């Protein structure tokens, strides 16, 4: 199955809608995330993780990450599922990290989600094609 998601090819980032499911899969929060093939992990804000029933503060897993602001340690949690680009991926690790308020972004859709698919960024048409890998 291949999905096609429109995007604006002229902006400085590729903003996309990302939905994150709660611990029991019954609640969903919709966020604005940057599609970032240079980011190893998917990020969500701490407060979103709390609202969805996760407790990043109690996670025993920490990931050292390099950001524009320097090196930080962010907790890693496994969420029930992440939905983006017309796809849904279960049991995916995400980092809990708050981006600067001025970014107007809630999170990042990173490689640990994107690598499940063949991603084709068609800048000439403003379409992202995603095909699930076998």
């Amino acid at each position, binding site marked *: 199955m291949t999905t096609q*998601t*429109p995007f604006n090819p002229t*902006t*400085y*980032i590729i*903003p*996309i*809608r990302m*939905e994150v499911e709660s611990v029991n899969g*019954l*609640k*969903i*929060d*919709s*966020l*604005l995330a*940057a599609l*970032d093939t*240079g*980011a190893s992990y998917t990020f969500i*804000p*701490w*407060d*979103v993780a*709390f*609202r969805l029933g996760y407790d990043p503060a109690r996670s025993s897993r920490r990931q050292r990450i390099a*950001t*524009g602001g320097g090196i930080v340690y962010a907790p890693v949690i496994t969420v029930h599922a992440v939905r*983006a*680009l*017309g796809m849904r991926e279960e049991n995916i690790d995400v980092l809990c990290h*708050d*981006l600067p*308020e*001025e*970014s*107007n*972004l*809630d999170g*990042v859709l990173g490689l640990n989600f994107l690598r499940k698919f063949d991603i084709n960024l068609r800048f000439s048409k403003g379409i992202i094609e995603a095909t699930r890998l076998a």
Partner: protein
Amino acid sequence: MKAELKTIEQLEQEYPNECLLLVDYQFDPINSQIIGGILVEHSKSRNEIYKKLALYDNDRLCIYYTGKPYEDIRYLL
């Protein structure tokens, strides 16, 4: 605040350059866009909206910014 379903166009007009918290939002899966929802919070500050998240037990919740990305900011994520 009165619970009323509004379209994104209405919300962008009424609350320009603000961060909105919508419940029971409507999503267009074809275009991957939010098309409406019930406004429960709004603020110029995204962090203020984050602080309100825990107050809502709704099944579907959306954080939506009505402005455009800052023209003078480049992103290094």
